[in-house]
């Protein structure tokens, strides 16, 4: 079956004088899979996401979404940034409906209301973005990304600006939201726990140049139980491979359990 997302030999450099930001990424993501990309700061994970989103183009290699080469932002791709980036002059409902401008009015309003209901913001539909809390605003951003029913949803550290409680709450919420249309999900995060709660597969990225260091399937049963001992074991394993990604490259490509 055609992979939802395919990266072949993707490299990125901004200045030839400096080392590659991304040095040859090969990645295939299955339809409906949830992939987490984990790495320390500056390893190029946000750059990678921007390449997939079409906001930037690779220096070499290709990015294919649903079999099509990505040449710019694509209607099948949804994106959630670290900040909500809601437009301050539009109400919450208008923000959520932002990507639906080509639809007839009643259709976009219906889908917008549905999306708001799914993120639990129906009561805030007429509010201004600045009246929302951080968690609410990020939920609105999620609703805005999901309302266009993207095939691929990209999230760039979506919850890192939130407090721990809100973060855990939204992580669970994201899983519920994903359950509706089951898009392919690519989550960039530096939070190991978040990666394990959400992802089917975790990829660690090494910096300078950015390369995939390890890949591991997460075989914990869903719903993921943060307090289960197996979760703790997985966390330690992932942390170890992440620390390995911070040291010079190793021979092993993936860890056996």
């Amino acid at each position, binding site marked *: 079956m055609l992979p939802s997302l395919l990266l072949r030999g993707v490299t990125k450099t901004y200045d030839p004088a400096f080392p590659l930001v991304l040095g040859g990424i090969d990645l295939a993501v299955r339809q409906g899979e949830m992939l987490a990309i984990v790495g320390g700061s500056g390893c190029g994970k946000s750059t990678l996401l921007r390449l997939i989103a079409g906001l930037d183009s690779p220096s070499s290699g290709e990015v294919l979404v649903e079999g099509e080469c990505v040449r710019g932002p694509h209607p099948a791709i949804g994106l959630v940034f670290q900040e909500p980036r809601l437009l301050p002059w539009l109400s919450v409902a208008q923000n959520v409906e932002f990507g639906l401008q080509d639809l007839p009015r009643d259709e976009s309003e219906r889908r917008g209301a549905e999306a708001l209901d799914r993120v639990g913001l129906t009561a805030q539909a007429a509010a*201004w973005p600045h009246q929302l809390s951080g968690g609410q605003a990020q939920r609105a951003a999620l609703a805005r990304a999901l309302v266009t029913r993207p095939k691929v949803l990209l999230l760039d550290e979506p919850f890192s600006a939130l407090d721990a409680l809100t973060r855990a709450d939204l992580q669970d919420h994201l899983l519920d939201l994903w359950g509706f249309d089951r898009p392919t999900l690519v989550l960039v995060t530096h939070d190991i726990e978040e990666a394990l709660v959400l992802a089917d597969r975790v990829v660690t990225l090494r910096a300078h140049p950015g390369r995939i260091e390890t890949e591991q399937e997460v075989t914990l049963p869903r719903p993921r139980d943060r307090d289960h001992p197996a979760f703790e074991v997985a966390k330690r394993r992932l942390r170890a491979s992440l620390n390995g990604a911070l040291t010079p490259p190793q021979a092993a490509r993936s860890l056996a359990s």
Partner: protein
Amino acid sequence: MPLRLTSRSALGLILPLLLALAWEIAVRSGHAAGRLLPPPTRIWTTLSALARSGDLWPHVAATAGRVGLGFGFGAGAGLVTGLAASWSPLLRRLIDPTLQGLRAVPSLAWVPLFLLWLGIFETAKIALIAVGVFFPVYLGVIGAVLGIDRKIIEVGRIYRLTPLRLARRILLPAILPSLLVALRTGLGLGWMFVVAAEYMGASEGIGYLLVDGQQLGKPDQIIAAILVFALLGKLADGLLVALFKPFLRWQDSYRGG
């Protein structure tokens, strides 16, 4: 404890009212001559006589008309030039230094030149006002556009907005608050320039009343004219703010009141 709006305005009126009352008493009791600075009652008499006799209104119309036309041309030119200069860095580098140089010329220095080029009638006056209004609007527009949050623009890119749609749905609403400030500044300067324009040769207008009052030794007329200027300026500013209000509703609660 926060004061209600009416209480705050009332507090602001206390000082001028007290001063006016004190001056009135001083003149009436013979302690002050009241020749160079007439008491408030005499100013009021002069003003109401002008209004009732119908003589005031042609002057108001003449001045307001000049400001209106000058503001229209100056703000329009400032808006177009500012937008063009923010859009094209090359254009900005070409024209901005020249415009900054022209801006450095004190307003009154233009008067003899305009009188010579454009004559002593309306054209010269309107041109002078337009020049005065142009610069703050031009600067304000550039500042507004260059100050737009890039992250918000990226939202427009994600949703693949055409340049025209991007301008209409993101750029324009984003610069509206700063644009209003620039226009209010320009309008204020417009009133200042109309005084200069009418001072240098007019047969009607509130500025003409100023000159007439000075030449005939009528300080009450001078002060009455000053008060009319203040009132007209405040009204015009209020009108401008009211025009923008429906588009800036989202800012109201943001300011916390």
